[in-house]
């Protein structure tokens, strides 16, 4: 039984399709990074999983329970760090955690949880005066109540400084070592690289890529970029380059000529062709694509790796 499974899950708001036929499967015990730019449909998906927003069509289960019919059982067994939450400004941090413990009939010690998220000094302060980062820590402490089988964390690092983000990752790892499945969303790729077993990348309401980070990178590696700085760009050169075997898009940016290579063995051919067109190559750089490029390629139409995105999504379909 998967930790999370959705089947053609769809949510429309009027004419806008926020989530479009999503099929998602998060395995038990894994750390799953749910990525995508703002507005891709991540939060709507999470809102449907939590019972905040009913699906327009499709269905889903969490730990085997139906997300619509058995939401109460689900929320008893999972821990949630919601997005855009507000605190009870008149209640202290400890009262918040105690409330979550009461609600779940758990037997945690509120002070232990507060200590885990490094809020001990503020335990007796009213949460209304907390900074965004402190509120985020408080929400995490509440999510950890009752040793949940699954943690759903919506943008857990937002509002945290780099140190706080590191502590957040450490807690995610600890929870995962304990046996919890962790599902978290982010719009920043680099946060997920270190801790995710698998990632799913969402764009315009659909998953466009889903795999381990290594596999995604491997699938993307073929498309290295060759950046040549030239003294001048002769007319018609980029069309000529695009005609070469193994060369995808060619982008001219000032005096930089960027060639996307499906086959990185074609670098010499590109350099020769540029010189043959009458330009002098002054500098040569070869960019292995970063995870960030991959993310941009998958989620942005204008990125130079648009083709890659399509190929990756086809890879998933097959």
């Amino acid at each position, binding site marked *: 039984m998967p930790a999370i499974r959705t089947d053609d899950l769809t949510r429309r708001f009027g004419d806008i399709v926020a989530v479009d036929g999503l099929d998602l499967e998060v395995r038990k015990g894994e750390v799953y990074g749910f990525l995508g730019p703002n507005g891709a449909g991540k*939060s*709507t998906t999470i*809102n449907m999983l*939590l*019972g*905040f*927003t*009913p699906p327009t069509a499709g269905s889903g289960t969490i730990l085997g329970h139906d997300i619509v019919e058995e939401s*109460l*059982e689900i*929320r*008893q067994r999972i821990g*949630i760090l*919601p*997005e*855009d*939450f*507000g*605190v*009870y*400004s*008149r*209640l202290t941090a400890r*009262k*918040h955690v105690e*409330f*979550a413990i*009461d*609600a*779940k009939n758990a037997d945690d010690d509120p002070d232990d949880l507060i200590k885990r998220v490094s809020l001990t000094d503020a335990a007796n302060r009213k949460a209304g005066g907390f900074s965004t980062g402190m509120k985020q820590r408080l*929400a995490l402490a*509440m999510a950890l109540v009752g040793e949940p089988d699954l943690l759903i964390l919506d943008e857990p690092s937002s509002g945290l400084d780099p140190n706080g983000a590191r502590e957040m990752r450490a807690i995610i790892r600890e929870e995962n070592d304990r046996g919890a499945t962790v599902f978290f969303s982010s719009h920043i790729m680099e946060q997920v690289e270190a801790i995710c077993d698998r990632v799913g990348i969402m764009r315009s309401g659909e998953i466009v890529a889903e795999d381990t980070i290594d596999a995604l990178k491997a699938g993307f590696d073929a498309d290295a970029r060759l950046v040549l700085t030239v003294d001048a760009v002769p007319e018609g050169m980029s069309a000529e380059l695009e005609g070469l075997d193994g060369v995808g898009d060619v982008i001219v940016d000032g005096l930089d000529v960027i060639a996307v290579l499906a086959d990185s063995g074609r670098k010499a051919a590109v350099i020769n062709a540029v010189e043959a067109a009458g330009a002098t190559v002054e500098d040569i750089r070869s960019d292995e694509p970063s995870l960030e490029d991959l993310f941009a390629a998958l989620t942005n139409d204008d990125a130079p790796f648009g083709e890659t995105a399509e190929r990756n999504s086809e890879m998933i379909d097959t």
Partner: protein
Amino acid sequence: MRWAHVARKDFADASRAKMLWVLTALMIVAVVGISAIPKLLYIPGEGGPAPDFEVAISYLFTTMTVMVSIIGLVVGYQAIVKERETGSIRFLLGLPFTRLDVLLGKAVGRAAVVAVPTVVGFAIGGAVIFVLYDGFVLTTYLGLLAFSILMGLVYVTLAVGVSASVSTRAKAVTGVLGIYVLFDLLWWAVPMAIYWLLERELPGTHDLPTWYVFVERLGVWNPLEVISGTMVDIAGVETISTADRIAGEVPFYLETWFAWVFIAAWIVVPLAIGYYRFKRAVIS
């Protein structure tokens, strides 16, 4: 009893609100001040006997009914919609609570919040009245207290129902005010207006059609007033009985005991509508 967790949390949260303590202070001032008026106005040797407990309690009754209804509405209208606006509802609904748990917990928690200033006001007011006036009757005083708590419950659940039905505080204020003005302040005019449309004359005080008194009873205050007559013994308030007002027999639904059914409906119906709307609300 999951809703009890919500109620306890809500009471802890709402009872720390400044507004509640402002209202409590106001309540004390009102109870003490208003009950003292007959004593202060009385000049010995002029205009009859010295005012006693009965006079004081009738002054107090009028004040309390207005104060408690306003406090109930003020305490209740933000109950759920504020959590939606601030986003704390995401904690609440992220924990294992159904939306019905949230609604019931809020209604009970806020009713308790209203009961606090009511009891405090009465305790202090009781002491003042005991000192200033002769003939203190404890049962009458406790009757008025019980009635005030019932009133608080009716108005707070009404406001919580509205709070569950809407998505912004502005709409909640509009809704609560609209209902208060129509079903409380101005409701007496509704049967009168219908009567005028039908008969082209204003109703008298006797031989009214049965429907007239029935429509009256649909308002919030009318059934409460009927019940108050059974809970608080206030001298000098001579209400004309229903039997004298209408032509013919008094149907069962206009008997005094049946006013409790109308009041139960005023508690249940707003909560039911609120639940229906809140259950379908998209939290996004």
